[in-house]
């Protein structure tokens, strides 16, 4: 059963150029860190997939196992785990996020 969840996560991560696992939804984030992460992604005007981990406890546990990272939100770009709110914020500030996004969307 746990494998099912991981397979489901893997599929979403691979099928979305940007995939965000968060608490709440992009329009109604349920946590400050998730809200800030959404805000950063939205500032680039790029489309991103998202899933609300609060809606499914198995995903909430599964995503932590999948990335071996203890917290949510989690951002995946081009199938690769990039980090949570702190790391995304820092990449954004250092100007390193834009090239990552450009590479993912093939410019």
């Amino acid at each position, binding site marked *: 059963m746990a494998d099912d969840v991981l397979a489901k996560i893997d599929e979403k991560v691979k099928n979305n150029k940007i995939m965000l696992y968060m608490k709440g939804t992009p329009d109604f984030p349920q946590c400050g860190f998730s809200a800030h992460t959404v805000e950063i992604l939205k500032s680039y005007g790029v489309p991103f997939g998202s899933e609300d981990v609060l809606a499914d406890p198995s995903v909430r546990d599964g995503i932590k196992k999948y990335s071996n*990272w203890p917290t949510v939100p989690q951002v995946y770009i081009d199938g690769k785990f*990039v*980090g949570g709110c*702190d*790391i995304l914020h820092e*990449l954004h500030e250092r100007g390193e996020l834009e090239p990552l996004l450009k590479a993912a969307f093939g410019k």
Partner: protein
Amino acid sequence: MITPEEIKTTLEKALPGSTVETRDLTGGGDHWQVIIVSPVFEGKGLLEQHRLVNEVLKAEIGDQRIHALALKTFTPAQWEKLGS
């Protein structure tokens, strides 16, 4: 709860040559911002750097002495560039 000295000592011992600055975000001693400048981060991405620090403080995070940890990690070269 943990003291800033404990955080500093633990990190500086595990990551030789590091400079560590701590900030108690709430005054409660368990929500911390930690800035680490370390040559150990050279050649590593942010994710790897944060993983490394989380690993060093695993016990303290695990037993909730540290409840929240906001990290800022830099290589010495990156840090110098920021200051100039």
